[in-house]
């Protein structure tokens, strides 16, 4: 089965607040419905029944008029990979087997996973720092769905989840930050320490279990019980701007104290990307990070932020193969990746 919708998110547009540092704000709610066991204990027949039931309800709720549902077990691996790279499904959902799916809106900002670790994982991504905006949106979706389904909810523990680390609100808020200056100046460890003291966690580019690439870090809440969503948003709204300020301060220090070093780093990265004939995604992410730093600090003025943001995704294996329209071997991928980068960085400025 082919799947053309669920395009790369509007969250890459570079629009919104604090976009020099914040790539996106992501919220997700873990929800289960009554009369079904949790995912791990469902037999195949019930799993299938649940998937049919939930997918119908999700579409019926019309959280978005153009919402499209796709069954992941019918989808080929490349299309699943695209959904993963677009942050519309989790790594777990990508790797799982059995009846499961995802509904998303055409803008790629809403996704509702069916039969993930919990029956439903509702997710909203917005560009830049948008905690309240994101919450209002996801809360609205949750309310709509609650009108069509009976959630598994208990007065003592709130929304019941398969894993007790999500119980209560079932809400995880993750803000994706680009912190190259803090990494460069080796101050990033301090951020990690401070963040863990206030019960927030640091994760990599693709969420739980993933590594930090391209100096991107996701800050998310760990606690979900005994706190209201407002409390969670409040604590993120206090901490994230502090990290942003810290990164900006170091950036400022970089430009005043070591402008040449910074410029050299940025222009070397651009040089690599504009000239390489074969390049791995790992290497690309490292250089793109420097370019992004250069663009947001106005060291470079002929490359738009959106182009850089978009490249972070388009150079991933799934996107690359989608753009080429065929499966590619890793070595072949590196060559095509280098071609793509050269043409993108040329289009938007002279070389």
């Amino acid at each position: 089965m082919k799947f053309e919708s669920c395009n790369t998110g509007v969250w890459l547009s570079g629009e919104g607040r604090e976009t020099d540092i914040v790539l996106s704000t992501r919220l997700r709610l873990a929800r289960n419905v009554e009369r079904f066991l949790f995912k791990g204990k469902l037999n195949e027949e019930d799993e299938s029944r649940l998937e049919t039931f939930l997918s119908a309800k999700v579409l019926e709720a019309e959280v978005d008029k153009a919402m499209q549902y796709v069954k992941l077990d019918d989808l080929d691996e490349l299309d699943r990979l695209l959904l993963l790279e677009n942050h519309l499904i989790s790594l777990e959902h990508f790797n799982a087997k059995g009846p499961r799916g995802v509904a998303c809106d055409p803008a790629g900002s809403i996704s509702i996973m069916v039969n993930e670790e919990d029956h439903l994982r509702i997710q909203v991504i917005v560009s830049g720092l948008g905690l309240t905006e994101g919450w209002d949106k996801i809360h609205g979706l949750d309310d709509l769905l609650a009108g069509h389904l009976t959630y598994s909810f208990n007065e003592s523990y709130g929304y019941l989840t398969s894993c007790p680390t999500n119980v209560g609100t079932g809400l995880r808020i993750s803000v994706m930050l680009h912190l190259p200056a803090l990494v460069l100046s080796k101050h990033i460890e301090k951020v990690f320490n401070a963040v863990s003291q206030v019960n927030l966690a640091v994760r990599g580019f693709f969420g739980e279990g993933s590594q930090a690439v391209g100096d991107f870090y996701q800050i998310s809440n760990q606690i979900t019980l005994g706190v209201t969503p407002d409390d969670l948003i409040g604590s993120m709204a206090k901490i994230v701007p502090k990290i942003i300020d810290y990164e900006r301060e170091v950036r400022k220090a970089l430009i005043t104290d070591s402008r040449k070093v910074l410029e050299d780093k940025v222009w070397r990265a651009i040089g690599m990307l504009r000239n390489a004939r074969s390049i791995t995604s790992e290497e690309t992410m490292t250089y793109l990070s420097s370019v992004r730093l250069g663009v947001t600090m106005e060291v470079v003025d002929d490359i738009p932020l959106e182009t850089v943001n978009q490249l972070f995704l388009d150079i991933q294996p799934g996107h690359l193969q989608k753009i080429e329209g065929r499966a590619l071997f890793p070595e072949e991928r590196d060559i095509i990746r280098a071609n793509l980068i050269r043409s993108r960085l040329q289009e938007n400025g002279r070389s």
Partner: protein
Amino acid sequence: MRCQKCNKNPSTVHLTEMKSGERQETHLCEECARKLNLPYKSQTLSLNELLGALMDKGQKKSKASDKRNVCPECGISLAEFKSTGRFGCPNDYRVFKEHVEKLLKKVHGATRYIGQLPRGRISVPVYENELTKLQDKLQKVIKAEEYEEAATIRDRILELEELITHSREHSGGAEG
């Protein structure tokens, strides 16, 4: 960064050694580090192991009784939960209540839900949980002279009190 020994896997173990006053950094993958028998603990402790460890801490109950402690609805045993970290059904929260509450206290520092209810549901206990918490918070913000916040909290308290009275009058007792 790739492992400096095998040059294959990503490095996840980072060693800093002081040799004759000089700092030396070595980056290895999990596998190569294990071969060297280094006195380090793996960072990749899985969530499940962590949950299991948290639950076992300070408990002397034998594993055998964990195996006998089974949920009648989904058939999961406490022992199975401890190894997978996942429940089998909503009922498990009640069946293994004692363990659940200890675990929740450790993971979340709390054992009770506060916040809104699913649309269309009414629950006095949830309102009361929030009320108790807000009353404490109100005292604190008044002490700290944060009057603007105090006013917001007071409004929510009034709203909750009204909700509680209203639900008591209309439902004749909340659902269990």
